[in-house]
């Protein structure tokens, strides 16, 4: 269990993390994403106990571990951490690395636990190797095994895949999620890669300028982003101009639609409607047509970049056999399950700069 309440972290006079509240219950995996410099790593280090907090508090099941004036040292928090550079000890073997945090166990129990973990991460034969004899992906697994060996209450992962090849990342992220679920480990990971977050996390927090913009499930983040920043940061999409006919009806280049996402809108309000590539369906019978500006082949799908008559640009994810040339006019229609609408001026000025 991990609970943060109105947490703020500052370096000197400079506050890098502001007013963060979130909680993870046992076995949940959380992810912090955001552009570099958004404070996500600082937040992780504060949870680990390497940074003091300026306001608010951090609680684990043992009680409050961080608050202004209170900093329980990292070695007493019963947390595990996987570092960006893995930070494996090069003078120890794989088995000794995994056993490093097991000093309180008897020799037999610790050997047993090391074997168990090597099995779990799928590297049962590497116990006697030294770290420099392992590949990057193997080092990553050993770093994970070392961190979870003492059965920490919460596991912290600091951009754990950033030094690995792209292909390796996704398979490893899936494996690690399985391992964490198997061990019923509460975990929180920092990454700048949203697809890693989608693969790993039960809950994702999007941060910008030290603030939590949204803390929600991957589905909600993608389909119900609370503001333009989250809409823009997560997934691909465009904001299409529209006008309110009344509190519910929006008029766009695709016609008139009903929205219940944003209350308090009035007739005549200028709004932006979030359109994801999968919201636009290729339909030869549709009356609305658009010109193909670019296309990128994705195997099962083709991602088209289209220009509407109004001059607006949208994306369209079409099945792969709907193959059209650049410059061609194709028929499309908007297939919205739900509308995401932001008032144009009012919200823009509220957003953090």
């Amino acid at each position, binding site marked *: 269990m991990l609970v943060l309440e109105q947490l703020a972290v500052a370096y000197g006079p400079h506050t890098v993390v502001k007013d963060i509240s979130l909680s993870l219950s046992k076995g949940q995996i959380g992810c912090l994403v955001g552009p570099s410099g958004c404070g996500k790593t600082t937040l992780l280090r504060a949870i*680990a*106990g*390497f940074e003091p907090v300026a306001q608010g508090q951090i609680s684990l099941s043992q009680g409050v571990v961080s608050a202004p004036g209170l900093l329980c*040292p*990292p*070695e*007493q*928090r019963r*947390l*595990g*951490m996987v*570092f*960006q*550079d893995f*930070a*494996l*000890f*090069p*003078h120890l073997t794989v088995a000794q690395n995994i056993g*490093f*945090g097991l*000093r309180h166990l008897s020799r037999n129990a610790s050997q047993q636990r090391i074997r168990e973990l090597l099995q779990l991460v799928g590297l049962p034969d590497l116990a006697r190797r*030294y*770290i*420099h004899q392992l590949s990057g992906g193997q080092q990553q697994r050993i770093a994970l095994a*070392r*961190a979870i060996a*003492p059965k*920490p209450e919460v596991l*912290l992962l600091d951009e754990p895949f950033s030094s690995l090849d792209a292909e390796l990342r996704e398979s490893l992220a899936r494996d690690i999620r399985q391992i964490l679920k198997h061990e019923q480990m509460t975990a929180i990971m920092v990454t700048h890669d949203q697809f890693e977050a989608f693969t790993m996390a039960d809950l994702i927090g999007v941060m910008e300028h030290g603030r939590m913009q949204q803390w929600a499930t991957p589905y909600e983040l993608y389909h119900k982003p609370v503001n333009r920043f989250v809409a823009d940061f997560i997934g691909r999409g465009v904001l299409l101009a529209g006008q309110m006919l009344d509190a519910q009806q929006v008029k766009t280049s695709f016609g008139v639609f009903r929205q219940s996402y944003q209350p308090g809108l009035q007739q005549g309000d200028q709004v932006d409607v979030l359109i994801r590539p999968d919201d636009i369906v290729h339909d030869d019978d549709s009356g609305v047509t658009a010109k193909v500006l670019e296309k990128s082949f994705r195997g099962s799908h083709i991602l088209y970049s289209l220009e509407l008559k109004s001059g607006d640009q949208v994306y369209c994810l079409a099945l792969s056999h709907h193959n059209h040339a650049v410059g061609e006019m194709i028929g499309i229609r908007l297939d919205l399950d739900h509308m995401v609408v932001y008032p144009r001026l009012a919200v823009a000025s509220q957003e953090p700069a």
Partner: protein
Amino acid sequence: MLAKVSLRFDPWRWLVLLPAIVLAIPVLVILLSLLQPQWDVWSHLRQTVLWLYISNSLLLAFGVGVGALFLGTGSAWLVSQYEFPGRRLLEWMLLLPLAIPAYIIAYTYTGLLDFAGPVQTHLRDLFGWRYGDYWFPEIRSLGGAILMLSLVLYPYVYMLARNGFREQAASLQEASRTLGLTTRQHFWQVALPLARPAILTGTALAMMEAFADYGTVQYFGVDTFTTGIFRTWFGLNNSLAAAQLAAMLTSFVLFLLVLEQWSRRKIRYYHQGQKDSRTPRKLLTGGRGWVVLLLCLLPLLFGFVVPATQLTLWALATWQQTMDERFLQLVWNSFSLAALAALLAVLLAVIFAYARRLRRDWLVLVPVRLAALGYAIPGTVIAIGVMLPLAFLDRHIDLLAEQWFGIRTGLLFSGTLFALLLAYSVRFLAVSLHSVEAGLQRIRPNMDQAARSLGCSPRQVLWRVHVPLLRGSVLTALLLVFVDVLKELPATLILRPFNFNTLAVRTFELASDERLADASLSALAIVLVGLLPVIILARSMERVQ
């Protein structure tokens, strides 16, 4: 991976093999001397001084190892982990004792601490003691030699240990702490074991220098292998027995060499891809900061400030008598000899380094590695290994020339600078090779290919890419060898031509004649030049902040 050796003629092989064979001859001669055992001399030695040589040499090397380890690791830990007043300055100044050759610090402290020296004189004046009233430690002893050598050799350990500590990523300490270790436990279980290969390498280097030392032990009257070799050669007049003693000394050194090489390999593994961020230094304020500063000042004070000040005072008092034409002649001799030796060593290093780059097979690798082993071999040993074959050669050339042409050629090789230059090349090739190879490594093969694809011919690649990139490391190599030759004592003492003196030899002769103050000017000149490579080292150290 080594490539397969092709058998057709290849000029690069000969460019490596011929000089490498010549450079290997001295050590081979020493080893081959064992085939002609000099039983009578050996039984005499065994009954008299042999055990003294062995025990003194081992005690000296061991004592210096412990001393350097203690001073070097201690100061390295303090400057790498703590922030205190003067830390930045101290960090490089702790290297300064490297500039003082051991025989110079030895005679300076003798002048300071002997009966007529300022320390004892002041003590007598202060307490009203007289001769025989009090006990004062004798500096001219085995213990004194250990102390002197430790004071100037600890920087080897300091430098490597400091980098060893600094290069440990901050995340290692954080990993320790999340796994439940306190800072103190982290030091013993992670930081120290990780720095151990670096510390061992430095200690092995310091111990090799201790084995090789001739000036200090000769001056202090401590019988070791190096003084024994001199005595057997010039006193007992048995060059073969001297060579056999040298072989025995070499075997001790080779053991250290293996230790050093083995440790170096570990350093490479221990510092792989973990250089993201360094542990921030812990700020020490108030009294604790000053205590740490004082601790770090001690080795610097006794290893450099005190002897350098004493030398300067002596030089100021005597320079009007000693700064004469003879002194200028000494400076000219030393500088031209050192420059010549540096050019030769660097030329060989460049050839060897390129051959290694172009031909990656054992036929090049093995000779280059063997030729570079000379840095571990004491100067005395190399001198004997050079002298024996050259004297043999000279005798036969002289004989043949007289028979055929009726002229006497005399000591064509062994009595000229040739012998010295050969000995220096053997001893210091590793220094220049290390520097040049490091420079060449920065020029990755891709850069050659990039230049070729941009339209450069191989010759243009050399001029436009390699020369500008290598210039710095070649200059460094020149300087390092230059200074090492300038400081070198035992080989120069044995091999110099008649009536050819250098600063080092003159300093040692004057000091041996108890004309300490008169020796100070040449000693100071050596120390001042010796500061140059220390500055280079200090700058390279700054890169590992």
